């Protein structure tokens, strides 16, 4: 057994992407690169699956595996894998039309694996400093990827993302320092005062005033990365101008990782009764984002930008649900987060292929997809119907749970939330009508698409909407109770 010791799932989750990144950076040939990328992502997924069966290591000063982050890690590796499959097809087409050169592709594949590494590290970090560093690396890699096409728009998007992301990251670091300053007199100097598990054990004794200020900074800082309303400006640009696989990873995963950081600190704050409750802050930011983004959906002309605003709306709903707290709302938040990740990345897979065929992202230039490209067209219909929250798909279940659980406790907030959901619903269906039905517009070239990732995601969302397996429900319920 000693031979397998270094290959326990925890270190495998970190070593595989890093090794793959190094390999991809030196290997020439984009086909080989794409294949290795898929294989590495698949191995990461296997390692993540092993986490459920293998025994968990005791939390160390740097890494931690608990019931909460296993959910995030599993989701992260799954979407990471499907996106890598989609990316292989997508990138081949970009190369064909000369938008990317093989040299850039090598870079792109290496960066993809670095991003997977950074996100997994952020999710597994037991140390609030390490978590911050990992999220910074993830930000940097995505900035580079967003600017990959080096067009005016891409550079502007990357720059904006860079500046706003850096400010967010800086504020989060200040919050992290304040948590340390609060912990240091109780836990003592050194690394222990930054370890999440020792913080949570002692948090009741920490100075509440300092923790209050710290949480404001952390929420604003990591909230920027979640894309919450006053700080969301980078998100639509970054989604619209980068390569579509990156849009899928951004929406489906990176926003979750940032939200996970907020949740960790929320649990910390909630464990100290003297601290101002973190919930209302999250509720108001989430609600503002949802309402704001719902209205912004109407005036969008760019298809990727439209779905980026939809991501802001859904992250708002998820933050709202976690802010409300309690077993039911937390359960709804977790479910909604999972469903949104799957649906939104599925939609971006579809949209990526559509934009490639039509050669444009302008909504006005795309039309009649169900006639010209039935698979993509109906895939888009299914995706938009899912994201808009129609039954029987998974997002309906989770949105329904969020709204009903809120109705029992704060009816007024529930009305506002339901209103936002309806406004977004109408906007999405309005656009979908032109995109999928009616007169065909734009190129009708045959599609070279990989349908598997897209329908795998949407199929899972459909299945979850119809029937949630008992063990999954029990697991989510357990995690919800941890979230407080």
């Amino acid at each position, binding site marked *: 057994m000693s031979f397998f010791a270094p290959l326990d799932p925890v270190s495998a989750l970190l070593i595989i992407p890093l090794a793959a990144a190094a390999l991809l950076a030196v290997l020439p040939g984009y086909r080989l690169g794409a294949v290795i990328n898929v294989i590495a992502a698949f191995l990461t997924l296997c390692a993540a699956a092993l986490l459920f069966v293998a025994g968990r290591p005791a939390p160390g000063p740097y890494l931690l595996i608990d019931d909460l982050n296993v959910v995030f890690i599993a989701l992260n590796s799954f979407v990471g894998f499907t996106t890598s499959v989609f990316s292989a097809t997508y990138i081949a087409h970009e190369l064909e039309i000369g938008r990317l050169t093989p040299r850039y592709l090598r870079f792109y594949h290496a960066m993809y694996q670095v991003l997977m590494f950074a996100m997994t590290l952020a999710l597994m970090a037991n140390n609030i400093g390490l978590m911050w*560093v990992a999220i910074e690396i993830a930000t940097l890699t995505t900035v580079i990827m967003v600017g990959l096409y080096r067009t005016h728009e891409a550079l*502007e998007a990357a720059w904006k993302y860079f500046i706003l992301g850096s*400010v967010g990251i800086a504020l989060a670091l200040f919050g992290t320092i304040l948590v340390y300053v609060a912990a240091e007199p109780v836990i003592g100097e050194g690394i222990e005062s930054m370890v999440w598990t020792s913080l949570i054990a002692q948090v009741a004794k920490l100075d509440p005033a300092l923790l209050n*200020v710290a949480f404001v900074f952390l929420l604003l800082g990591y909230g920027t990365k979640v894309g919450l309303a006053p700080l969301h400006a980078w998100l639509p640009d970054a989604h619209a101008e980068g390569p579509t696989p990156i849009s899928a990873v951004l929406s489906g995963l990176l926003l979750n990782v940032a939200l996970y950081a907020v949740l960790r600190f929320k649990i910390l704050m909630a464990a100290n009764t003297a601290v101002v409750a973190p919930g209302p802050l999250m509720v108001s930011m989430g609600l503002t984002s949802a309402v704001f983004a719902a209205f912004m959906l109407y005036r969008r002309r760019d298809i990727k930008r439209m779905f980026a605003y939809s991501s802001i709306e859904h992250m708002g709903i998820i933050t709202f649900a976690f802010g409300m707290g309690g077993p039911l709302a937390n359960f709804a938040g977790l479910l909604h987060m999972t469903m949104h990740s799957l649906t939104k990345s599925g939609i971006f897979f579809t949209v990526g292929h559509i934009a490639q065929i039509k050669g444009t992202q302008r909504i006005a230039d795309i039309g009649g997809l169900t006639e010209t490209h039935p698979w993509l067209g109906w895939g888009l219909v299914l995706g938009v119907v899912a994201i808009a929250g129609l039954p029987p798909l998974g997002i309906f279940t989770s949105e329904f749970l969020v709204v009903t659980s809120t109705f029992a406790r704060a009816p007024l907030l529930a009305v506002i939330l339901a209103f936002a959901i309806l406004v977004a619903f109408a906007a999405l269906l309005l656009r979908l009508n032109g995109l999928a039905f009616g007169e065909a517009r734009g190129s009708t070239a045959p599609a070279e698409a990989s349908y598997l990732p897209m329908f795998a995601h949407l199929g899972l969302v459909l299945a979850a909407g119809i029937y949630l397996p008992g063990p999954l429900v029990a697991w989510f319920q357990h995690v919800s109770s941890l979230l407080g």
Partner: protein
Amino acid sequence: MDHLAFDIAHLLAGGLVLVSFILLYQDRLYSLLNIYAIHAMVLAASVAWQARIQNAPHLYITALIALGFKAFIIPLALRRIVARLGIHREIETVVGIGPTMLAGMALVALSMVVMLKVTPGETPLAREDLAFALGVVLLGLLIMVTRRNAVSQVVGFMSLENGLVLAATGAKGMPLVVEISFAFSILIAFIVIGIFLFRIRERFDTVDIGALDRFRGEER
């Protein structure tokens, strides 16, 4: 605690706030970069002093990074970029100097009130340090929002980051400080290389962020 040690730490941290104020009203890029170099030097002195009074030799590395990288390499690199791009004439400020200074004073007052109020249990040294650090961070944010020029926004961000390093070194025995200051240096290097490599000037014919708006995907 030794009074002199405290006074010097206080002086250096306060000096950093003062230099932040000077940064706030610079209207030429070269002088902005010069003042930023002084900002980084004051930070280096402050960190080195903290390393001495806390008996934390690893902080000397942070001080060295601040001195070598931030006070010399980055300003020199930015000077070259400014000269290459031919934008050394002046920088326009969105808001006038008067209101900006008033806003800056209000922010520093705010950070004093907030930080001193929430840290009664800490040592005086840590309290003052955190209060000044928050002041520097907020002033850095103010610089970023009042400038439209990419280079001066970067200077604003770097001064903000200096505030964070001040806070991190002031927190007694905080681990990972060196790593964090190193990570930040990489971030800044990326930004500077980004301006240079992406040739925002060549691409957009200006480093004025306002002009970038034109290229947004949705403008008709």
